[in-house]
């Protein structure tokens, strides 16, 4: 009897607990979790991306692939090595490449150990000349355009001028803001049809001059220059609009699965047989990149001939919605 009573109480308790669960907190899933000790998401981590950069393989160097290691910025794509001054460091990485071909390659600032009286900053940036919105064909034209489009709040301190840095030709452009008491030194050259810029900012022109002089320690590809810098040698030649009708022997249009409204610029390397060897999307949604990749795999190009021999070539193609380009051309105030 007592045993039956105990059994009945246990069964009653069990039944009540089942009822309570049915009316209590929903099972985990969807908007509900009953497990506060569950796996935690990492903080300050981007897990949901929009249009972003991607590539067809992880071996071929990319413009955005440069890194600061042991106080040296190295970029395999651009063949660039730049030793930072002591007490300078990269704290924050840059945003992804833009859909108009703008790269922030590195943002460098004084470390906590920096002893100088005035701070400054170094931005290493690049602009893919195939996709720039500005009316410029090369780095020299782009810097001249920049000078012409500088607004009235800034004062030109040195107009675009050709200078020698590390035995290579650069265009140098200095300007300042009287109200902010800040100065900028911009030193740019061209590598693989990209403008590569070193942008120094500080209140101190002395610091800027020091940083400019220290650029002489950098290593660059042989052909780097404000108008040259078209690849060749160890890397493919870069040719604007190589994917024009006369060079495309077979073309398959991508089959998109989503209606998108963004430009999807892609750089491709075409091998000696005229097949696409490598793709680098500067900015594209994953579904766009997949559709374009599938299509480009079927394209056949007329092989590029260099000195009469087939050679690899790098070019750019813009898929998606083309952005508005600036049509006015800036007058040339310097020439190479």
């Amino acid at each position, binding site marked *: 009897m007592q045993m039956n009573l105990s059994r009945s109480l246990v069964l009653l308790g069990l039944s009540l607990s089942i009822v309570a669960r049915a009316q209590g*907190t*929903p099972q*985990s*899933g*969807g*908007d*509900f*979790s*009953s*497990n*506060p*000790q*569950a*796996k*935690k*998401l990492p903080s*300050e*981590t*981007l897990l*949901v*991306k*929009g*249009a*972003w950069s991607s590539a067809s393989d992880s071996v071929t160097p990319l413009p955005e692939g440069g890194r600061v290691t042991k106080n040296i910025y190295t970029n395999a794509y651009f063949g660039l090595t730049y030793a930072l001054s002591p007490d300078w460091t990269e704290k*924050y*990485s*840059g*945003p*992804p490449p*833009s*859909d*108009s071909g*703008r790269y922030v390659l590195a*943002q460098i*600032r004084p470390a906590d150990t920096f002893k100088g009286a005035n*701070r400054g*900053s170094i*931005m290493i*940036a690049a602009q893919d000349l195939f996709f720039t*919105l500005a009316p410029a064909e090369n780095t020299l034209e782009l810097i001249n*355009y*920049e000078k012409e*489009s500088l*607004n009235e*709040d800034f004062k030109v301190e040195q107009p675009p001028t050709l200078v020698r840095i590390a035995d290579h030709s650069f265009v140098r452009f200095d300007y300042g*803001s009287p*109200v*902010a008491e*800040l100065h900028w030194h*911009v030193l740019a050259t061209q590598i693989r049809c990209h403008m590569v810029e070193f942008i120094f*900012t*500080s*209140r101190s022109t002395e610091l800027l001059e020091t940083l400019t002089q220290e650029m002489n320690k950098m290593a660059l590809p042989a052909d780097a220059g404000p108008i040259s810098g078209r690849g060749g040698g160890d890397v493919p030649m870069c040719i604007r609009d190589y994917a024009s009708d006369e060079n495309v022997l077979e073309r398959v249009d991508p089959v998109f699965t989503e*209606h*998108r*409204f*963004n430009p999807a610029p892609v750089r491709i390397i075409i091998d000696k047989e005229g097949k696409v060897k490598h793709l680098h999307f500067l900015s594209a949604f994953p579904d766009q990149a997949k559709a374009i990749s599938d299509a480009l795999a079927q394209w056949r190009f007329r092989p590029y001939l260099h000195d009469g021999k087939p050679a690899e070539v790098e070019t750019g193609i813009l898929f998606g919605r083309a952005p*508005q*380009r*600036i049509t006015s051309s800036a007058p040339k105030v310097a020439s190479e």
Partner: protein
Amino acid sequence: MKTRKPAFVFACLVALFFPGKAVAQSDPGVRPGAINGQPAATPMSPLPLSSVNANDGSLQFFQNGLSRFQDVESVSKSSTNNNGLGPRFNFNQCSGCHSQPAVGGTGPASNPQFQVIANGIANSSANTIPSFITAKGPTREARFPFFFNSNGSPNTNAPNGGVEDLFTVSGRSDAGSCSLQQPSFSAAQATNNIIFRIPTPVFGAGLIENIDDSTLIANRAAQARNNLGISGTFNHNGNDGTISRFGWKAQNKSLLLFAAEAYNVEMGVSNEIFGQDRPLPGEDQLGSGLPANCLNLTGTGYPEDTTNFTPTVTSSDQFAVNASVLSDIEAFAQFMRLLAPPAQSTTTPGGATSISNGQAIFKAIGCATCHTPTLNFTQPSNITTSLGSAPVTAFSDIEIHHMGVGLADNVSQGGAGGDQFRTAPLWGLGQRIFFLHDGRTTDLLAAIQAHQSSGSEATQVEENFDALSPSQKQDLLNFLRSL
């Protein structure tokens, strides 16, 4: 020989021992004085655009919308016929969250969401106040970036991002037998699977709505060449492909859509654009939707907010009668559309020289590259003349920009990814209390510094800000608080 006053001596001692403190810049705080810089405005009566008038009826429509913006919604049986609240909601009145410094603004100093149980808006039998809703904190909506899996962990393969309404109508006397539970906010906080958004102010919103795409595109092109690492893009409306412009990620095309979505999502009122009661994202996409006893709580069918075929207003003023025909969402949209933008103070805080200097610095260090001071001009308007051919001094390019991991919310909306946000319009900033999309700070200086993190387009601009002298930084802060 003059006798030195004690206060002067004290000031010297402070300067001697705390030199940094003596010159350090600080946020001047919420600007005192006229609401929106408009002496005629009051907290309950923000000003319409100057061309809004009684002769063409626009004033009656503005006032009707203003009134409805302040209506308190019930679930059912309301004597004022303001029914339709819930079954889930964040608050029961538009102006509850859009009230600083006046109706149409952003979150107030005292958070009305904190009082929903005390004030009988939500019942304690089915609701608790989430820990992130505090008495003096920002009014907020919450989103879970990811759905939970069956083990209760956030599933990074299943993005969510929809609004998780804070409260349910369950337990209210006008909610019948509807029994719902709040989403798992505590677990979401414990697993870092929650983000917040605060209300965007809508002063001057009609001007933003009336900018042609070509103006925005031209501005983007003009700003494209900069040495700051900034390269914005636009979010687009999926239906017609044009630039969308409202909301923290510019995900909404128009004020009507904006109003309709908010009415449905924030208050749970179905309407002629969003015609159903809204379940939680997981209830809809992973479950079976809302339970039957939580549907049609008004007993009148759907949508709960409709065009009023038979005007209920009797008035000798035909325009007042006409305005009563609108549905609530149309009235809200007209109110927002006709609402005047805030006016900048030329002298407060810090004086005219400091503000002017700060404005120049704002441009010089690159803030204005995204926070475009003026977009010229709106397209001609068929609604009221003030909306047409007008400069828009919103301090925004309406573009979305990568803002880095420090601000990323891992919510995708339209073409905007988890780290992309619309450049927040800064007009009216001087009288806002909470800053950034989630209201994480009331300190303008902290808000500026939050622009810098890995992956942010604004890192270099913030670096330029850091290079300014303390007095220059103060001028910039004064300028921002003058807006």
